[in-house]
């Protein structure tokens, strides 16, 4: 087995991540030597226990490697080790980069100019909208968008980038052949066409809890900066922010409503010094990229001709759904009149019907 193949083989052991791999390299000099080493010797290395050592020993026959390479050919997956040209350079700068990456699609060198957009898996309508909007603006500026393809903000970020006709990279917390959540299968296919789906985990790895922090360090590692859109107090997106700081990436936070639990995480970040952003321009400025003019999320209703009834009804709408009944009570108009006004606002594109009522759009 060549050195490259040995790295891929070592990477198939889930417990050998960036750190233990680095330890093995320090002890034996090469992956090949590590696989050839005796169990006793392996046990000497920091972090390698009995079970892991036994597994490394069992790699000798090359069967695990063969299966992995065969599967990669079947699915059209590229496996890039740290020494390969396909391996994203940005990752080499982080501490303990993953020994090998599975790539569906292509990571271009230009994708180094990217921002990561992450956040809650159960966002509000506002969060989803901001993520999409920011992502779309980012790709329009020539940036790629990196995210984790989870439900909520992550998916919205990918969709925004695709809608803007730009490039986007999804980093998975499972094997590259295990798309999670399942409803994102189509999205994954689209991302593959317009960027890449990548994973450091061997084929068939389930989306275990403990995989996600490892995945998050790649998300932040790939990007110039990380934007947190909505995050609860214990959200995984905050782990990504921690990695970003560690890796010397910028951290941006989108403010939310006071009192909304989904704002707690982002507001805490702002208190700790993260950059508060209102639009893509704030990000570009912080990254030192020239800006192309005003593109913040704005209230577009001012420029539209709205009847006084429509204005009164619109005044009741925010980013959280408001029910027709609440508007009836607040404005004193009949349910019939309010429904009429809401549909007209919807057709003019300033309101949207969502579950639970209507919001501004």
């Amino acid at each position, binding site marked *: 087995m060549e050195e490259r193949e040995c790295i891929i083989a070592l990477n198939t052991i889930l417990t050998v991540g960036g750190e233990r791999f680095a330890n093995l390299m320090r002890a034996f000099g090469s992956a090949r030597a590590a696989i050839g080493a005796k169990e006793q010797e392996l046990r000497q290395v920091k972090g390698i226990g009995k079970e892991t050592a036994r597994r490394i020993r069992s790699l000798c026959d090359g069967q695990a490697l063969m299966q992995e390479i065969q599967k990669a050919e079947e699915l059209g997956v590229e496996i890039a080790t740290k020494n390969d040209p396909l391996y994203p350079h940005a990752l080499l700068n982080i501490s303990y980069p993953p020994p090998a990456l599975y790539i569906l699609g292509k990571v271009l060198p230009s994708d180094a100019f990217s921002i990561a957009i992450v956040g809650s898996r159960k966002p509000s309508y506002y969060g989803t909208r901001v993520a999409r909007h920011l992502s779309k603006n980012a790709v329009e500026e020539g940036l790629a968008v990196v995210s984790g393809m989870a439900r909520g903000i992550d998916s919205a970020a990918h969709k925004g980038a695709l809608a803007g006709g730009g490039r986007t990279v999804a980093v998975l917390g499972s094997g590259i052949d295990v798309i999670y959540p*399942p*409803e994102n299968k189509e999205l994954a296919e689209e991302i593959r066409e317009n960027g890449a789906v990548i994973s450091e985990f061997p084929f068939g790895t389930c989306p275990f809890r403990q995989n996600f922090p490892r995945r998050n360090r790649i998300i932040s590692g790939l990007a110039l900066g990380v934007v947190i859109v909505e995050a609860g107090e214990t959200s995984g997106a905050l782990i990504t922010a921690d990695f970003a700081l560690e890796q010397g990436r910028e951290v941006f936070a989108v403010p939310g409503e006071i009192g909304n639990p*989904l704002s707690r995480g982002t507001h805490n970040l702002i208190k700790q010094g993260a950059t508060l952003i209102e639009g893509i321009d704030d990000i570009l400025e912080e990254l030192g990229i020239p800006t192309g003019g005003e593109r913040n999320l704005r209230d577009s209703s001012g420029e539209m001709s709205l009847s006084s009834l429509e204005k009164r009804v619109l005044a009741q709408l925010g980013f959280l759904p408001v029910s027709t*009944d609440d508007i*009836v009570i607040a404005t004193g108009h009949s349910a019939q009149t*309010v429904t009429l006004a809401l*549909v007209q606002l919807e057709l003019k594109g300033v309101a949207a019907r969502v*579950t*639970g009522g209507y919001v501004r759009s």
Partner: protein
Amino acid sequence: MEVRLVLAKVPGGAVLGIDGYLVYVEVDVSSGLPSFEIVGLPDTAIREARERVRAALRNSGYEFPLRRITVNLAPAMIRKEGAGFDLPIAIGILSAIGEVDKGKVADCVFLGELSLDGNVRGTPGALSIALATKEQGFCEMIVAEANVGEAALVDGLDIYGVGTLRDVVRHLNGVERIERAGRTNINLSSVRAEDVDFADVAGQTHAKRVLEIAAAGSHNVLMVGPPGSGKTMLARRFHTILPPLSWDEAFEVTKVYSALGLLPAGNGLISRRPFRSPHHTISPAGLIGGGRIPKPGEISLAHRGVLFLDELPEFGSHALEALRQPMEDGFVTVARVGGVGVFPSRFILLGAMNPCLCFKSANLGGSSSCTCSPGAVRRYLNRLSGPLLDRIDLHVEVGQVEVHELHESKDRERSMDIQKRVMKARDAQIARFSGTPVRCNAEMGSGEIETYCKPTKDARTLLYSAMHKLGLSVRSYTRTLKVARTIADLEGSEGIQAHHVAEAVGYRMPVFGV
């Protein structure tokens, strides 16, 4: 030794499904070993009539003949059910032994169950049998007092209500005539559901408006909202804003209830629109109708009224799918071993459901407090099939009512006032559709929509723009037009204006699961 052969023939009746038919009870009393046989495919209840008749005759002071008695129920090949043959069998025996004049017996239909002491009890289906009686050219019918109200609904039939077997014999022999029952007559337009009213419901102006439109055009409605938001409360009051039953409608409804023996004691006519709310564990047969000899199900009990299905996605998929055809046709045909039943099923469907499974979400599709996985929510919503949703014209989200709204003292509209508007809109529809089988906007087919739903230019533009911008499907296009027609009718407007269409668009089906 002289052998005396005696034969009596007494008309009786039975119900198949909800339709009555006449059965001739032939009684033969001949010499031989004492026995009592009933033939002609009787069910267990009829077979047991032997014991009831024997005891009732003896306890009424008549002698039970100790001879060979054979009772035949003609036509012999139809399987018969029920205890309504007790009275004709008893009369047949009495007439065979000469206690009653045979000539008197042949012109009158008898119906009633006997108790052991000789009292006559009511039986199900008296109305249907009375109709059959009239059809067959009879003009007299003797029924239990409990059945007089419904039987007397039939025009041109003399009904006599009797309390005991002795009364019947005395009446037939002319010893003591029973007075003919007066025809049941109720002023249906004055009937009100006094116990519940729309004014009881606080807030929910949005849902109330939707229900008003539903009542005016007979549209089906789906209400989505968290538990405790008042969906059931609204549904239970829905029939109070529907127009009162017409005489013919009341008759149709009463026929179903009579056949199942569900008529309330009293005047015998169902005078209010029915409200049926079956539990979601109901079987398809319970909902649609079924049984060895077919019996009407909940949809027929809701005929001309409201069928409320709470927790709609929890109903079995077979039961929900079975709803489609009866909803379309207004009747259902149930074929079983014991016969074929055709039951009416023209009702307004009110569906209610939670937004998700965990009940924590106030909104459809889940919010941050909802603990359902998106997959679970999708599976829950997918239980409602597209074809069923296609038959639901109005969708409304029913939100939680704030506590302060519960105590607001603002005058809430009473059912009676809403009903007046609904009736006006219905009158407009009856006038419009006169000469066609359609009676209300919800029943319009594509042809009628073409003819009667002509939106103005503005309205058409708005509709196209809604299709384009809001992703309205072609199916929801026709639904929207139907609802817009009803909204225009409520306003008394001949044409469909832009604001009618816009409001109708507001009641379209939401995109589920987003």
